[in-house]
Structure formats: C-alpha cells, structure tokens
C-alpha cells in the first residue's frame, strides 16, 4: 500500500490549546493537533485519556473552556447555530453504538439527513439511499428495522447514514468496539475504501492497536489529556516512549502499573 507522507498534506482540522475541565479536573489539557486532508488519522490512548471527549469537541457536541478548533477554515468554538449547521454538513459521524433511530427502517435512517437538509425528490433520495447502502455492502436492506440486523450491520448502516450527504470528513468513535475480529476488519476495510476511493478525511478514535496500525496514515497518542506523540504508524511503533511501548504491546505491567490503589487513582484524576 502506498501511503502519502502526513507532513505533505495540508490540514483540514486544526486544534490549538484545547482545554476542557469537568469540575477541577482538566480532561483535555492543552491539546494541539492537526488532521491532514484526505488521510486517515487515528487518535489513540487508554481508557479515560480524553480521546472520546476530544472527538465530541471536534463535532461540536461539547464547547471547550479554552482554545480553538478550526474545521475547513471555520473556528467552531462559540460559532452561532446557523453557521455551525453549515460546518456540520461537511462531516458525518459514526457513533460507538451506531445510534440508529430505532423507530425507523434502515432506509429511512440513511434517508434522514437527505430529507431534512436537501430538497431532493423522493425518487432521487431512494436512489442515493440504495447507492450508499451498496457502498457499505448492504444491498436490499432498506426495509429492515435496526433491531433485525446484527451489530456489525448496524455500524455499516450508520456509516451509510454518515456519508449520505457526501461529507469531506467522517469521524469514527471506536469503530471496532463490540464487534468480532472479522466484522471489525470489514469496518476497517470500509474506512480504507472510503478514504482511498472517495478521498474522505477520516478521524478514528480507537484503542485497538491492530486495526489502528492497519488503517492509520497518521497517529496521535493521547495520555492524561495531553498529546503524547504524533507520527506515522511506523514512527509510533518504534517509539522509545515507555507508555506507548506498553500500550502497543498490550502489556499489563510497565509505565502504567497493574495494581492501583483507590487513593492513587483519585489523585491521578485530580493531577493536571
């Protein structure tokens, strides 16, 4: 596989000095990062490192306490609703639990953004729904209800819904979570396909090393609300940082101790 070097592509998302506090605890503590256009960027880190919180900031679900987030040229921090809705048209998001609307069929779920945001005729919407479902390998599933299909299929439908409006960027929150290895690798393949064929910028939040190394053009490792290391998959694999080494190899003992006292845990939470 030929990979373009991350440094050569221009950034589509830029985050500067992002800080988010919940109470006294800074979950994100001065994050600076750049997401290159048209590539797959994987944001990694252990549980509780702030990666999901970061993702929620990128899609505008949370407002930061400090810092700025630029998506395709617009700073979305404190952006008024109307302009923010314009920015939201540029991205789609795949949620961890797929987040399909249970009262609607698969077809209606995919059609929802089209019906709400465009004035396309019903026939054209049906054609687009068919094309998008075909793209994720689920031809003919329009009439199924979400509870009738498997977890992996739900994620694929959610992906079809996320790309319904042909976004420039797709965010993935733990795409492989809760799936068997085969289904998870199918989702990885879809992410790669979308990125290579449609030039969609992908931002993947994950802690699954195998999948991360398979798909990543660029990796960002978070630890305790800070960016620990940034680089290509190769660079991250060969880093000397003991924490990342432990993370990459999935070892129980290392920079992060196996045993934790509750005092130390609470102290760690408050450490900023």
């Amino acid at each position, binding site marked *: 596989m030929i990979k373009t070097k991350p440094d050569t592509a221009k950034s589509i998302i830029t985050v500067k000095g992002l800080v988010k506090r919940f109470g006294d605890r800074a979950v994100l503590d001065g994050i600076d990062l750049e997401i290159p256009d048209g590539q797959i960027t994987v944001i990694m880190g252990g549980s509780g490192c702030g990666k999901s919180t970061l993702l929620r900031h990128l899609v505008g679900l949370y407002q930061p306490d400090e810092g700025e987030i630029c998506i395709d040229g617009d700073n979305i921090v404190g952006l008024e609703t109307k302009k923010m809705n314009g920015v*939201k048209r540029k991205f*789609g*998001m795949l*949620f961890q*639990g797929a*987040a399909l609307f*249970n009262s609607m069929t698969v077809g209606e779920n995919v059609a929802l953004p089209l019906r709400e*945001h465009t004035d396309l005729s019903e026939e054209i919407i049906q054609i687009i729904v068919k094309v998008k479902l075909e793209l994720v390998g689920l031809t003919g599933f329009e009439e199924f209800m979400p509870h009738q299909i498997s977890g992996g299929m739900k994620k694929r439908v959610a992906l079809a819904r996320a790309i319904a409006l042909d976004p420039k960027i797709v965010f993935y929150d733990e795409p492989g979570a809760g799936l068997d290895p085969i289904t998870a690798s199918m989702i990885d393949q879809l992410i790669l396909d979308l990125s290579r064929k449609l030039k969609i910028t992908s931002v993947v939040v994950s802690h699954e090393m195998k999948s991360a190394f398979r798909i990543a053009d660029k990796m960002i490792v978070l630890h305790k609300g800070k960016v620990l290391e940034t680089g290509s998959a190769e660079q991250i694999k060969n880093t000397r940082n003991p924490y990342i080494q432990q993370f990459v190899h999935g070892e129980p003992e290392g920079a992060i101790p196996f045993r934790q006292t509750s005092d130390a845990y609470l102290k760690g939470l408050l450490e900023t």
Partner: protein
Amino acid sequence: MEDFFGNIGRTAGEILAGLSRLTALATQVAITFFRGFFEHKLVRTRHVVHQIVLMGVDSLGIICLVGASVGMVLALQAAYQLRQFGAQLYTGSLVSVSVTRELGPLVAAIVLSGRVGARLAAEIGTMKVQEEIDALSTMGLNPVQYLVVPRCLAFLIVLPLLTVIADIMGMTGGFLISSLGLHINPYLYLDKTFSALVLKDIYTGLIKSGLFAIIISLVSCHEGLAVEGGADGVGKATTSAVVTSIVLILVVDCLATAVLYYVLPS
C-alpha cells in the same frame, strides 16, 4: 439541625434549578413553534400527525373507560346525598357541570401523564442513552426542534380532544347509572343535564386541559433529555416525569380554577 436546614436548602435549590431548566425548554419550544409559521421544514406536519396517532388514537379506550366510570361513581354518590333533600333529579346537573369543569380535564390529564408522559420520557431518555440525540445534533438537527416540538404540539391537540371524549363518556356513564340503576326519568335527567351546562363550563375545562397538555409534554421531554447513565437513568426519568407532571397538574389546576373563577364570573 444543620442537616435539616441544609436539606431544605438543597431541595429548594434543586426545585428552582429544575423549574428554570423547564422554563428554558419551554422558551425554546415556543420560539421554534412560532418560527415554524415562517420557516420551511422547521416543524414537520408528518411527525406531528404520527405523534397524534400514537398518543391519541391509542389512548381512546382507556379514556372512555376512565371517563365513564368517573361519571357513574359521581352519579351514584351525588344521588345518595341529593336524595336526602328530595333533589335526586339534579344528579344530572351535578354530574355534567363537575365533569366538564373539573373531573374530565383532570382525570384525562392524570391518565395520560401515565400513558403518554411516561412513554415520552422513556423514549427520549433511551435515545439519549443510545447517543441518538447526539447523532441528531451532529447531523445538524436540533433535538428540541426535531423531537420535542412535534410531541408538544401533538399533545396540545390530543389532550383537549380526549378531554371532550372523557366529558361525553362521563355524562353518558352518569346517565346510564341514573336511568337504569337509580330510576330517574331519562328525559328529565337529560333536560337537567343540558339546562345546567353553559358554554363557559366547557371552555374553561378545555383551557385547563390545554395547560395540562403543555405541562405533561414539557416535563416528560425535559426528563427524557436530562437522562444520565443507562437503564437506571431512564427508569428514574420515567418515574420523575409522571410524578412531577401530576404534582404540577394539581397545582396549576388549583391556580387556574381560582383565576378562571374570578376573571370570568358567570
């Protein structure tokens, strides 16, 4: 002592905070509702109609049953007292006036706060837990506009209509019990029923039921949107939606009755 006053303070604080969140939601709903008259695609008629079917048509049976039984019980109890004055004939007047002014709206609201309010809170709460609300908002769809407004609007249409049905069923129940069980002359009963009723009785009842509809739908949607955590949170929200709705219904009922009594004297 400190604990005692601390608890009072905390509870009062929580109630005030809840009320202010509720007012904020109400304002947002009202703004969206009025903007809906001018902006294309803001409030979807399709969604409102869908909700009307879910809330209204499916609640018909229970409303008829409850309305009729309230009317019957009221007729029996009234006749029991009125007989002492030889005024059993006035059972019809008493039933019709008390059902349209008070019991119809109140009973319909309480039954539907259990049936519809609980459903709204559980539905929206589950959507919150399963990230569906977040999904809506990343798609650029405002959850208040997309979920809350159609539900409030539908319920504002449904509850007064069901109240009318409860009124009619209540009077029918009273009529059946009086003519079949208490041997009051049916013609005289009907005559008393309609001569006692004035238009004001009916529309004050409907004004109240409109207020109840706003309370139930707002409280339930608010509880649903405020769900934190998983299944436990949804359960708590559902209970809290029904309890808060009923308490607020009773408070507003007292206030509205007093206001209507003094503002619109017959």
